[in-house]
């Protein structure tokens, strides 16, 4: 291979020249100039609403009405549809998996590229199954290729979406928040996979909020803010502080260590709680003002425990005591009566009513303790919602906006506000900062600490270990539906947590 050929091999797959895109006159991208090279992992970072996803979607042909120019292999190309992008060797793994729920895993992975027999052009199911299984194995997953997608957990769906992107064997593969619903181990497999792609000469764009992944993976990091490219430099030129500064345009206040929860009376006592296929023989106590974390790999039972305590998938065995009195929670109404609120993991699927305004979403149930009148007292509702919105830091001008038009961070604040309107004694938070930007995350963390300081008990399930370590007084580590370790918040570190969750020898030493 001559030097010249090497140069072209390592050259730009795609060049973006003064790329712009507006939504109803509001610019989402302005004059972005970027080069995406073969064999390079290019990370795009920025807050929510900075334009990363829009940029990725333009490249995937999903926003044909962009301005500016895209050159592929040096030639200008109009990416007018996903079909054009696919033909040019571009594939996108989207943040919200774009799958057909009623089809199987392998049918989704091969969608649009189904292998067909030479005669009669019939589907070759065996080939599809093997191809899917091989791709999934490469991601460290033993997911059944014949499983129906509708029955899969969010993490598994994300893996299927990633496998679908890989199946296209693209020259440029864009990942938009691929790890948001993955466990630590799945993330590790994904990163290995991305490195293998890079070694093969594929160009990779990696959009993520998780800076540790970005630093572990990227060759080049570009920062977007308000739709514009603020900086683009090799990884070595960045450190965490400079990156955060570029993303938010200001330095973040350093985190303060929280005051430890005092020895208050237990609010919730869980004895021998179990639900078949989810968790077994669970014992723990939760005090007022305490933040108890639930750690564990995906599928370890974190979400199931929260959902059972809220009555969405009630426990089948064991007993609960709230404030010393036995309690039975068979449906959400029971939980609400006991002063328990819940913020679900999946905002889009289980959290928001997209067509309603932020105010209507927050006030869905009315305020707890208020007289149960059939008619809504509009001025009072506005006042109550404004008060609770202010507590979670939701900008007041967003109150009447349709909730589907809000950013992920603000949507999450809407859900937190809804839970707070119930004036809970115990709040169950499932991945409260899932796929939201750094600033909004810091804000939500601050609100959680405030809640606890005001005496609310918090049960926090999270796949992000730094989040658990920063917030929790104690952390229960789950594996396969059981508690394998309990760590004090100030004595735990990421290594101990991860070791306990994955069941390594270290964990046994620690517990």
């Amino acid at each position: 291979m001559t030097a010249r050929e090497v140069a072209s091999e390592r050259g730009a797959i795609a060049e973006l020249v003064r790329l712009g895109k507006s939504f109803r006159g509001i610019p989402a991208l302005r004059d972005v100039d970027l080069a995406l090279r073969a064999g390079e992992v290019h990370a795009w970072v920025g807050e929510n609403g900075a334009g990363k996803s829009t940029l990725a979607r333009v490249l995937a042909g999903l926003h044909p009405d962009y301005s500016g120019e895209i050159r592929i292999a040096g030639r200008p190309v109009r990416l007018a549809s996903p079909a054009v992008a696919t033909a040019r060797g571009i594939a996108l793994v989207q943040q919200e998996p774009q799958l057909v729920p009623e089809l199987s895993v392998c049918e989704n992975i091969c969608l649009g590229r189904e292998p067909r027999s030479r005669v009669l052009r019939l589907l070759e199911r065996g080939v599809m199954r093997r191809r899917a299984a091989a791709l999934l194995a490469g991601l460290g997953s033993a997911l059944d290729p014949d499983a129906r997608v509708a029955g899969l957990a969010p993490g598994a769906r994300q893996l299927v979406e990633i496998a679908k992107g890989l199946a296209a064997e693209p020259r440029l593969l864009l990942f938009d928040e691929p790890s948001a619903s993955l466990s630590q181990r799945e993330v590790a497999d994904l990163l290995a996979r991305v490195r293998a792609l890079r070694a093969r000469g594929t160009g990779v764009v990696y959009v993520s909020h998780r800076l540790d992944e970005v630093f572990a993976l990227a060759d080049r990091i570009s920062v977007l803010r308000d739709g514009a490219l603020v900086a683009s430099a090799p990884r070595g030129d960045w450190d965490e502080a400079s990156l955060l500064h570029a993303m938010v345009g200001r330095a973040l206040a350093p985190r303060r260590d929280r005051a430890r929860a005092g020895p208050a009376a237990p609010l919730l006592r869980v004895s021998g709680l179990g639900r078949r296929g989810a968790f077994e023989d669970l014992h723990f106590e939760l005090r007022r003002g305490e933040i108890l974390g639930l750690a564990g790999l995906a599928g370890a039972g974190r979400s199931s425990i929260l959902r059972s305590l809220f009555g969405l998938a009630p426990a089948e065995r064991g007993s609960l005591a709230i404030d010393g009195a036995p309690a039975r929670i068979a449906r959400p109404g029971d939980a609400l009566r006991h002063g328990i609120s819940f913020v679900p993991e999946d905002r889009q699927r289980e959290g928001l009513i997209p067509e309603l305004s932020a105010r209507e979403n927050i006030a869905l149930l009315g305020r707890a303790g208020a007289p149960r009148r059939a008619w809504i007292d509009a001025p009072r509702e506005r006042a109550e919602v404004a008060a609770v919105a202010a507590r979670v830091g939701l900008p007041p001008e967003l109150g009447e906006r349709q909730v589907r038009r809000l950013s992920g961070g603000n949507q999450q604040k809407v859900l937190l506000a809804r839970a707070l309107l119930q004036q809970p004694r115990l709040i169950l938070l499932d991945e409260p900062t899932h796929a939201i930007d750094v600033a909004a995350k810091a804000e939500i963390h601050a609100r959680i600490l405030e809640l606890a300081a005001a005496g609310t008990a918090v049960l926090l399930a999270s796949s992000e270990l730094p989040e658990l370590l920063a917030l929790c007084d104690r952390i229960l580590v789950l594996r396969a539906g059981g508690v394998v370790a309990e760590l004090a918040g100030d004595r735990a570190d990421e290594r101990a947590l991860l070791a306990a969750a994955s069941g390594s020898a270290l964990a046994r030493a620690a517990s």
Partner: protein
Amino acid sequence: MIRACAARARRADTRALGLYAALALLVLGFSLASPAFRSAENLSLVLRQVSVNGILAVGMTFAVLSAGIDLSVGSLLAVAGLVSALLAQREPGALGIALALGAPCAVGVLGGLVNGGIVAYTRVSPLIVTLGTLTAYRGFAVWFRVNPVYELQPWYRELGRLELGPLPLPALVFFGCAALASLVLSRTRFGRHVYAVGGNEAAARAAGIDVARVKLAVYAISGFCAGLAALVLTARLGAAQSVAGQGFELQAIAAVVVGGASLFGGRGRIRDSVAGALLIGVLFNGLVLLDVPSPVQQMLIGAIIVGAVWMDAALRGRDDR
């Protein structure tokens, strides 16, 4: 907040305004083209004719908002009409009058509760459930009374003809029913829960809303409206028969979708469904008066239903991009 509010109002209203403008243009156009159309008697007739479909459309709006549908309303109307007519054959007394008026509504609620119970507590889709009860209720009506019921008491038949000021009584019932429904949907907790269940059922459940109860109530309301429509229709015709109301469910759905409601649930308003019902009613009446042959009427109205929804979707699409 004011600006955001105004922007939202503007968006919702460009679509609705288009509907109202189309209705106004239609009335204006027919009035210019046909002196018979603009006569007081005809306008009163249009209102009386629309009121049955309009009342059904009000109930259907609840079902559609909850991401469901109620195909059984035409059959339920037939059952309720027969019951009402049988009671209206008797000598009038306070109890007799109350029964003749109340029983059809009670029958409607009962039929609606059966629909709602199955929809809420099984995993069978509303389309299937009410497709089944569409057939079953019709069968019940025929089994209950094969022959038409007429020779109703004069007081009862008078209800269908009565005019209060410029408005016939059936139209007043329709508008009153619509006004009440509109208030329930916009100003009560239950109304908001209907939007929530239709907009995102999983989220409604996770928020602690009793989804099954909301659905049960939605179909009970739709059934009640079928009973009320049966009363209006039977009083107007002075007779009831087991084959009454065939295909009415489709006309009610047409009114609701022309009004811009989403069949996927969570989006729609009573007043827009009312406008949809009026639009379809005016169109039918005007085309008859202009001597447009009946098959051509049907083709035109079919095209207009699809066209209206297509325009609505196009406007929404532009909105979202």
